[in-house]
């Protein structure tokens, strides 16, 4: 099969689109025509015998070819213009035969070696038509050369284009990778290119049979991307999918998957709400779309939907892709896909020599920033003002001034961390394996806190028969962490706030050897007492595995079945040591033991049909997916321990002793059709029907459709002729995803058990009461409609790539935990709010580049920035959610209401300090002359306008340097820690900022007067505590060195590299607290940007080594 075409480019650019399309169609038809002709170029007789009447010239050419073996080059348009011919030739020479044939036709011909080029006569030339490029050349000088194009694995490349440099002569390869092309001289240079491969220029010289190998372009577009129920080449993707680079994981002290995702992709915001070792991250894909359905994306690991990914040792990750729009996520339809889907592929064995990888690192962390607080002298002065202004006797602290305890220094420490990962993998023709073990140990920067994880993974794949493949993957982990109390109640609970508000004069221990209470300090905890009083250990034993079977059926159909199991045993226990605090001693110790066993199995079955019909490429998937998730929890709590015993066996007074369970299941059917025509016009459509036990009997099921279209302009000739774009694709998609409530039984009216009562004061009697939650049998799915349009392009030989997306995502039928009138005796009911919606809309830009790429030095870089706007609309006032509680004031900071972003800050607008009175002034928004609760308004949004990441990898000879920067812009943080540190209304320690407080009339200060009890409400929730939360963080810098290859060979290893890194070296921010991205609300959608005594973040330095055997 030989495909050759001639192009004329000089006039095309001015053509209208219709003309282009027409041309495309014509040209397509031409290629099809030629493709259908079997051409054999073997030597034949030079004479021809033909007898035809009123036959098309094409047929004549075919006959000539058959007899002579000469190939024909022509434009099918020219042939269409030609009339039919009638000939009767008997054994005439070829030349004569052609002359006879083309007599009276607007055509002429040239023979170059064994190729006959047929073209229009000059005077017939027409602007609209394709002309032969050879008109100015003396045709007799042409010779035909042949060649063969393969990839690096010697696989022929079908459809690679071969152009003669400086001319418009072009051909493409056939299925065997072969081509023929006419050249004018041996100086000619061939340009060989193929989508996804690096183009090459080949001087022809005197070669006649060129063997050309194209290397796969190292570009994103060529990557195989894991998508829902399958894989797809990046170039064919029509939805919004981000592939996250993971190559830096091996050189960074990363213990959790989400950490590896930070700053890596547009539309993916990773929040680390606290600095607690092993602490949970929050991953947001295109903002928060649901209030009650949660904000976390759906995680799919190796095809199995899992409830969390903390079991994964990041070192075992091969790829992470994030399905962002509904067209990509739609095949997962439900169960959180509204929040995007994170697909993780873990490493599997590969064919070839077995390899062993070892990675080890060690590092040290420390508090990134210390907050300055008052010393005893300064505090004494403050206490005087607080008491005097409040009409209180001045507390006398003189007897305690011998103490000078810097609680921050006492609570925080330099903490080591280390990690080891060992893996081995290999494979033969039929099977492969991967085995890895890992150990992470991270001490927290707060005393006693730590996190340890032991993990192991074994994955095998075996071709059982030529048509059946079996695989299994088993992961085990054990994590043990010691927790310290932070968050929640600020100073009344949590060492972080206590370490700031406890006066330095406070003694560490009292005369009984207990951690002392802080004298005169309004309930401030002794931070050490708070930490040592309650020793909490969390242990998780988790087993995650799947078995998968793949059968190749006739007719190009593949059946795949994956059975996945997740088993987590979580134990949280605590012991309040009676030797540590008075409180614990008074009850002779108290302990608790809480367990949760989670078992989840998933069973996914898919049939996949993949077929190429010439230029039509079809992939069709149908399948079903079943999940059953059950948990059983138990809680035991007791006090009065026998001296020295720390387990519940030694306790005598029981407080809690119960078990409970929870289960849900879902069943889904889905189908997806992907189609492309020549990789140029791409379309995909999916439909999923999802059923969940969590909904009312009438509304268990819902349909989730999605469609997407793509157009690879770079495959169009008129773009190719620009010779600028290596890739250019437009994408558009629409789809629907769903979400469920987090509660398993919202549709049932239930009676709660455990409302017991001790009638005789000793034994409890069983009691039931109406549950707080009223059942709603009509509850239905939450729907998110999402539109996406995007563009992908690559230029400069794939050295620069650019992707942009615009999206609009609206969640309807919001599932809301609606407050009922309490007079009904119940509190809440899950309802759908049909009119209200949450919208996230935004644009995303990603730039990938290799600014420098030469033998010794390369620099590759990715910059991504995402803009998202979140807004809640049409929510009635009765459904407003207040959240973010500050116990000190018994007030809330956050509101979710119509017209504003989820979890916006709500309070008074501060107008600074009245220089006369020293009290805060607030805006009287309703102009009624009184500052009251009606003067509260939304004062800011915790959600950033933009977030970005900038990653760079430099390599110079054997050195490499990784730099990762990320940040957010345009969000507000409610600094409740500052509220407690500038309260000046009780006897706690305060920030050194209060040294500049208002003291006397006409003082100009931003801080009000100190006064006991805050009678004028200076501390009320107001814009006074809102700060700009924008930051830019140098998240990671790693310098690496690879031992020279020669040396490695000498010591008989494949490779050794050493690296040293710095994490969180600096944060550029105006924020005055520990860190602008702390959030006491963790992953809550209705409390964000809320800094209230959250475990602060650390900076660290690490060194490590990678060894490959």
């Amino acid at each position, binding site marked *: 099969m030989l495909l050759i075409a001639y192009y004329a480019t000089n006039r095309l650019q001015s053509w209208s689109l219709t003309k282009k399309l027409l041309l495309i169609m014509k040209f397509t038809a031409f290629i099809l025509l030629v493709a259908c002709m079997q051409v054999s170029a073997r030597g034949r007789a030079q004479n021809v015998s033909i007898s035809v009447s009123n036959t098309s010239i094409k047929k004549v050419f075919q006959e000539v070819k058959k007899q002579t073996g000469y190939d024909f080059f022509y434009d099918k348009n020219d042939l269409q213009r030609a009339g039919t011919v009638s000939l009767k030739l008997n054994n005439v020479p070829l030349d004569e035969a052609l002359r006879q044939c083309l007599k009276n036709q607007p055509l002429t011909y040239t023979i170059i070696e064994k190729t006959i080029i047929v073209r229009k006569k000059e005077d017939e030339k027409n602007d609209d038509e394709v002309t032969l490029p050879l008109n100015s050349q003396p045709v007799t000088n042409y010779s035909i050369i042949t060649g063969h194009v393969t990839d690096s694995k010697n696989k022929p490349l079908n459809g690679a284009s071969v152009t003669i440099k400086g001319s418009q002569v072009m051909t493409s390869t056939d299925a065997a990778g072969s081509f023929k092309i006419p050249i004018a001289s041996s100086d000619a240079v061939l340009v060989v290119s193929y989508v996804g491969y690096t183009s090459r220029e080949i001087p022809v010289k005197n070669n006649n049979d060129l063997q050309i190998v194209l290397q796969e372009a190292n570009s994103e577009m060529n990557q195989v991307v894991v998508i829902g129920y399958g894989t797809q080449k990046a170039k064919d993707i029509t939805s919004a999918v981000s592939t996250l680079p993971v190559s830096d994981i091996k050189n960074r002290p990363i213990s959790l998957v989400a950490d590896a995702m930070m700053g890596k992709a547009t539309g993916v915001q990773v929040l680390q709400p606290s600095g607690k070792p092993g602490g949970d991250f929050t991953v947001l894909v295109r903002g928060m779309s649901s209030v009650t359905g949660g904000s976390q994306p759906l995680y799919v690991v190796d095809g199995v939907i899992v409830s969390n990914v903390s079991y994964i040792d990041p070192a075992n990750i091969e790829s992470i892709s994030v399905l962002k729009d509904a067209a990509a996520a739609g095949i997962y339809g439900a169960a959180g896909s509204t929040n995007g889907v994170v697909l993780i592929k873990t490493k599997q064995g590969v064919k070839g020599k077995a390899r062993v990888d070892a990675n080890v690192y060690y590092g040290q962390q420390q508090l990134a920033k210390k907050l300055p607080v008052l010393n005893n002298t300064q505090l004494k002065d403050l206490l005087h003002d607080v008491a005097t202004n409040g*009409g209180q*006797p001045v*507390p006398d602290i003189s007897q305690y001034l011998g103490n000078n305890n810097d609680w921050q220094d006492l609570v925080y420490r330099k903490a080591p961390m280390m990690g080891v990962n060992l893996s081995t993998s290999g494979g033969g023709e039929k099977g492969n394996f991967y085995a890895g073990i890992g150990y992470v140990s991270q001490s927290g920067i707060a005393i006693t806190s730590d996190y340890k994880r032991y993990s192991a993974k074994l994955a095998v794949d075996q071709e059982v028969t*030529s*048509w059946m493949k079996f695989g299994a993957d088993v992961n085990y982990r054990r994590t043990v962490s010691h927790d310290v109390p932070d968050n929640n109640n600020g100073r009344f609970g949590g060492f972080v706030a206590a370490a700031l508000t406890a006066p330095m004069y406070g003694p560490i221990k009292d005369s009984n050897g207990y951690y002392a*209470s802080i004298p*005169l300090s*309004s309930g401030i905890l002794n931070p050490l007492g708070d930490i040592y009083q309650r020793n909490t250990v969390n242990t998780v034993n988790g087993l995650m595995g799947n078995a998968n079977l793949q*059968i*190749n059926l*006739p007719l190009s*159909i593949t*059946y795949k*079945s994956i059975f996945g199991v997740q088993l987590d045993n979580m134990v949280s226990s605590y012991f309040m040591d009676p030797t540590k605090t008075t*409180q614990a001693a*008074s009850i002779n110790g108290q302990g608790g033991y809480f367990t949760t066993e989670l078992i989840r199995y998933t069973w996914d*079955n898919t*049939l996949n049909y993949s077929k190429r019909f010439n230029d039509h490429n079809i992939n069709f998937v149908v399948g*079903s997916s079943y999940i059953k998730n059950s948990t059983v929890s138990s809680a035991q709590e*007791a*006090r009065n321990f026998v001296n020295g015993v720390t387990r519940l066996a030694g306790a005598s*007074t*029981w*407080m809690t002793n119960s078990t409970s*369970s929870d289960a849900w299941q879902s069943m889904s059917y889905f189908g997806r059709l992907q189609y492309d025509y020549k990789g140029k016009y791409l379309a995909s459509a999916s439909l999923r029907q999802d*059923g*969940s*036990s969590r909904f009312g009997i009438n509304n268990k099921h819902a349909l989730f459709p999605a469609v997407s279209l793509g157009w690879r302009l770079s495959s169009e000739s008129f773009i190719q002729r620009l010779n600028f774009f290596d890739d250019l694709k437009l994408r558009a998609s629409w789809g629907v995803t769903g979400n469920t409530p987090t509660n398993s*039984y919202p549709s049932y*009216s*239930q*009676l709660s*058990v455990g409302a*017991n*009562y*001790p*009638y*005789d*004061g*000793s034994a*409890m*009697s*069983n*009691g039931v*009461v*109406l549950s707080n939650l009223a059942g709603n049998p009509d509850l239905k799915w939450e729907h998110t409609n999402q539109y996406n349009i995007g563009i992908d392009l690559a230029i400069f030989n794939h050295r620069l790539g650019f992707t942009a997306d615009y999206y609009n995502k609206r969640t309807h039928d919001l599932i809301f935990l609606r*407050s009922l*009138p*309490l*007079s*009904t*005796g119940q*509190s809440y009911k899950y309802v759908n709010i049909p009119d209200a919606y949450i919208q996230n809309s935004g644009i995303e830009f990603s730039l990938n580049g290799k600014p420098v790429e030469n033998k010794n030095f390369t620099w590759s870089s990715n910059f991504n920035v995402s803009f998202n706007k979140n807004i809640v609309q049409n929510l009635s*006032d*009765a459904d*407003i959610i*207040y959240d973010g509680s500050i116990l000190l004031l*018994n007030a809330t900071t956050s509101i979710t209401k119509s017209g504003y972003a989820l979890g916006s800050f709500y309070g008074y607008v501060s107008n600074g300090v009245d220089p006369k009175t020293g009290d805060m002034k607030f805006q009287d928004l309703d102009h009624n002359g009184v500052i009251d609760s009606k003067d509260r308004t939304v004062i800011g949004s915790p959600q950033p306008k933009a977030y970005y990441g900038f990653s760079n990898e430099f390599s110079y000879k054997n050195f490499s340097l990784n730099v990762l920067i990320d940040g957010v812009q345009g969000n507000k943080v409610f600094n409740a820690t500052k509220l407690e540190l500038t309260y000046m209304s*009780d*006897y706690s320690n305060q920030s050194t900022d209060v040294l500049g407080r208002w003291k006397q009339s006409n003082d100009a200060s931003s801080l009000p007067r100190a006064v006991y009890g805050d009678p004028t409400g200076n501390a009320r929730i107001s814009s006074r505590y809102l700060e700009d939360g924008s930051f830019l963080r140098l998240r990671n810098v790693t310098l690496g060195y690879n031992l020279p290859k020669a040396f490695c060979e000498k010591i008989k290893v494949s490779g050794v590299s050493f690296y040293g890194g710095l994490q969180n070296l600096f944060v550029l921010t105006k924020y005055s607290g520990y860190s602008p991205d702390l959030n006491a609300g963790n992953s809550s959608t209705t409390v964000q940007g809320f800094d209230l005594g959250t475990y602060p973040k650390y900076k660290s330095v690490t060194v490590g080594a990678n060894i490959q055997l």
Partner: protein
Amino acid sequence: MKSEYLTKYKTSKAWGMFGYALGISLLFLLGGCSKLDEKPDSSVLTGNYFTNRASVETAVTGAYSWLGSTSTQHYLWGYLIDDSRSDDSYSAGNSKEITNLEYFNMATDNFEPIFRAWSDCYKGIGSCNLVLDNIGQVTDPALTDALRNQYIGEAKFLRAFHYFNLVRLYGGVPLVLSTVDPDINKKRSSADDVYASIQADLMDAENKLPVTYPNMTGGHSKATQGAAQALLAKVYAQQLKWQDCLNECNKVLPGKFGGTGTAGYDLLAAYDNLFDNHHWGNVETIFEVMHQSGSYGTFAPGLLIPNGLTDDQTWTKFIAPSHSLINAYKNAGDTVRFKTNIIFQNVTTAAHPWPFAANEAIPFVWKCGRELQGWSSNQNTIFLRLADIVLLKAEAMNQTSQTTQAVLLVNQIRNRANLAPIVVTSQSDVALAILNERRLEMAFEGDRLYSLIRFGGAQYTIDAIKQQKDGSNNSLASFYNLLTADRLLYPIPQKELDVNKNLTQNPGY
């Protein structure tokens, strides 16, 4: 490639067909196995729960549980801090909620004591309604008529108890008498209608409840006929229906107090024994809430007793006895009840609550629990006791011009406190003497504010509150500038107004 595939196809044809069958059947049959039906098994479905006697009993027990569970803050301590609105106690700590309650500076929104009282009373009412809605459908022979009556009586008693608290706190409230009332956005009924409902419930309960229960050694924790009568007496009294009140008092009181009661109630010999946590189930208590350390304890003592007497070093206290109350004990020469109800400590390590002078020993509430027991004390809370009814009868008699007999009753109470009898003067003097006696006897039992209102109406109550002085004898009147007659009622919580558009706010808010 093609030929390779064909080879595969031939060798695997049979398996291939099998694979098809397997694949397709697994794909589509799987759904048939799953009805997506998951029901909770850590709770019970309301619809099919009430089948036997035991199920009704658990719902009755659930109704009691609201009185003292740690999730029910109103009955745990909200009931007590309400006293801070009277002239008996101050807000004593750094709790803005209580300080604002003390000053009648109650914002409608986001003000927890007001929200909690509403919520907890209605949760309790919901539980009572649950019993009353479902008991009729139970045909279990084990549910004898006596038991059926008892359960109905208990539920009605508790429902009346909650509504009595609601109507005193908020005025007229939505009258919800069934869990399946389709009108979830109920309008407020008038206070009179609420009282009428309370009376109807109590009259029915009075007829259905037993006089006593076996095995109540731990305390009088279950509603009895006497409890219904005593509560009804209080309900009548609050409406100033003195003759009805008198009748009900007489049903409770034994002969020695001029009553006809046969349940065996009497005054306990030693006043302190009522509250020392070692004499539960005594003859004087009519209805009390049980606590059990650990799983059903109360943390109220920790909120009231001084740091030096508890293991707790951090909390400032919620309420502190007022100078007015202390002076009342001193003026009466009442050392017995003074000692039981109030304890003084020289507090140096806590911030001084404002009404106390610099070197003044700080008074603490000593009556409501003396053992913190790790914030889970087993101290019971007395809701109804005989002394209350004795004094109520005295009040009713005095109001019905039987002043002489009234004084005899007062003196019986004073006798226990080692106080000299009072002598009959005018009816109004005796009324004042009864009010004062109630104050000394019933301090920190959530009674004072309503006694004042009953005695003298709103303005008298306001004046009494404003007459308070601090430790240096300065007037505290200016702190109560917000206090008007309207503010003697709580506002309807804004949260409730938000979700129930048919509700109206109380005047003055």
